[in-house]
């Protein structure tokens, strides 16, 4: 049995408290009126003149193009900036909530794949995966609460939730059959509930299998995993439209669901590897050898390349055809988010590609940990670049709000995951593939 070390517990509480304070500061320091924004913009104009005046020219041109009265252009611009700034702490929280939730969710998908494919090697890691999916109910509830708050107009992340915006926007009106608040919440509830139900059911079955004399639970687990994977593929795809693509309701992409999935699964496998290495370092997983780590590292490598493949396929098809209604998505990202947008390619592709290519390196824990941390940061930025341009536009900055949101959710994640680990023995000893997994070597 695992005992939650008091150090780690203190760390998780510290992360939660620091994170909470930072998030609260982020909300409190948001300007609340147009006048505040004007003062703020005036300050920044004074401090860096040339850049700011350039900005103003663009803003003016923008306002004129929108056929606004030239005299009011400054006002409307300030109001626009105010909306973006108000969204900033909300978006920061949303990115962090989604990021950790997707790690947990994709771990569940990976777990189900291992059961459905009757893989021999990962049996010794099942309890680690189950612990990571232990965050699923908590994260699911947090996300759902976030969606309810959004639909109550406490923030403006999802512009199609705003009846005033929809009234002036025919494109969104045409999508209202799908993008409307009640249906959105019902869908979210169905996805989250479905995922949690499988998670709890699978956990119950493996625990029951530990002390069973026959394989009845194992067969049930096999069947439910296969069924879950079908459910997951459909709901994951729809989830990506609902929760991320609908932030840009004028834009659409067909491989978006897969792209999100690739990001999810590589982060999830990385997290499994990191937690396993941590536990092995503490002496809790003596049955995990470096061949298991090698396999996880191969998955990290392979899915990093898979992510890049989907990222590039989406980008290149849109760049090549350059159809205005699609290309704005990448135009805003390329103009306003150049460093994170291109930087994540280095973190998510180039770095894992070069570091994890060598077979020997894939067996060395500190190589896996280093690459793992880089991959997780890279995929945080990936989600960041998906969400932020739609909600805060060019007002983005990775500052107190963003970092403390991550710390807050990371604290909750660590607390929940390691608490779940203490609830069951670390070896799923009922699995018929246990011997094979214990003797697994590559």
């Amino acid at each position, binding site marked *: 049995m695992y005992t939650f070390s008091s150090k780690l517990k203190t760390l998780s509480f510290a992360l939660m408290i620091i994170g909470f304070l930072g998030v609260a500061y982020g909300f409190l320091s948001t300007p609340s009126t147009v006048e505040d924004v004007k003062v703020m913009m005036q300050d920044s104009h004074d401090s860096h003149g040339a850049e700011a005046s350039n900005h103003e020219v663009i803003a003016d041109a923008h306002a004129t193009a929108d056929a606004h009265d030239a005299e009011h252009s400054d006002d409307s611009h300030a109001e626009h900036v105010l909306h973006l700034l108000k969204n900033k702490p909300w978006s920061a929280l949303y990115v962090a909530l989604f990021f950790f939730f997707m790690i947990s969710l994709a771990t569940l998908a990976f777990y189900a794949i291992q059961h459905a494919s009757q893989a021999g090697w990962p049996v010794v890691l099942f309890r680690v995966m189950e612990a990571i999916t232990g965050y699923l109910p908590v994260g699911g509830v947090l996300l759902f609460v976030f969606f309810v708050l959004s639909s109550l107009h406490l923030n403006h992340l999802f512009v199609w939730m705003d009846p005033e915006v929809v009234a002036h926007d025919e494109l969104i009106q045409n999508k209202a059959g799908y993008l409307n608040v009640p249906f959105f919440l019902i869908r979210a509830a169905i996805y989250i509930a479905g995922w949690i139900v499988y998670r709890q059911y699978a956990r119950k079955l493996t625990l029951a299998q530990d002390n069973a004399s026959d394989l009845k639970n194992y067969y049930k687990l096999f069947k439910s995993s296969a069924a879950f994977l079908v459910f997951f593929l459909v709901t994951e795809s729809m989830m990506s439209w609902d929760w991320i693509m609908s932030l840009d309701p004028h834009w659409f992409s067909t491989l978006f669901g897969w792209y999100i999935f690739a990001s999810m699964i590589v982060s999830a496998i990385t997290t499994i590897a990191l937690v396993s290495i941590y536990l092995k370092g503490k002496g809790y997983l003596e049955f995990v050898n470096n061949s298991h780590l090698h396999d996880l590292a191969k998955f990290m490598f392979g899915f990093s390349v898979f992510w890049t493949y989907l990222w*590039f396929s989406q*980008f*290149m098809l849109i*760049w*090549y055809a*350059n159809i205005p209604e699609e290309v704005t998505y990448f135009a805003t990202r390329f103009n306003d988010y150049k460093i994170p947008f291109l930087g994540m390619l280095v973190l998510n592709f180039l770095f894992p590609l070069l570091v994890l*290519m060598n*077979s020997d390196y894939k067996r060395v824990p500190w190589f896996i940990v280093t690459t793992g941390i880089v991959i997780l940061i890279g995929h945080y930025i990936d989600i960041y670049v998906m969400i932020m341009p739609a909600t805060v536009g060019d007002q983005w900055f990775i500052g107190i709000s963003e970092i403390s949101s991550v710390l807050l959710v990371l604290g909750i994640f660590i607390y929940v995951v390691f608490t779940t680990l203490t609830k069951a023995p670390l070896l799923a000893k009922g699995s018929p593939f246990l011997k094979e997994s214990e003797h697994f070597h590559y």
Partner: protein
Amino acid sequence: MSNKVVQAMYNDDDILMDAVKETRAANHHIEEVYTPFPVHGLDKAMGLKGTRLAITAFMYGCVGFSFAVWMMNYMMIEQWPQDIGGKPSMSFFLNMPAFVPIMFELSVFFAAHLMVITFYMRSRLWPFKEAENPDPRTTDDMFVMEVAVEGDEAALVSFLEKTGTVEIKVTEKH
């Protein structure tokens, strides 16, 4: 020194593995082992060094990548930067996404083919090459371990007879 070798024949890969380990432990030099199929772990038991083929493949891949970059840059950007459907042919970077499929394929092409050719050259395989197996049965169901004769031939033969061999033969090295 004589050129003689002892060819000990086995009919089971597990017995062969044990024989290889015993022979190595007794400090006899194993010249070669002929098997009809890959025996898992045989290379480790024989103490063979790991292959460096993967490293050559990586380098060939880099060559292919560089070749693709050079070729596309020369043809599309430097030599005749024509406006084709509005693609930005002003610099390599601006038009890079369009070149990526070719860069990828050429990397794979070079890595794969040059590595295979390297493999053929290193393992001396080509059409019309004369087969080297000492006994045609080694391609079907028999395993042959070839041990160099150094010193006492009779002692070596009697040692090998105890390793589970089904047939033993002393020949001049071909």
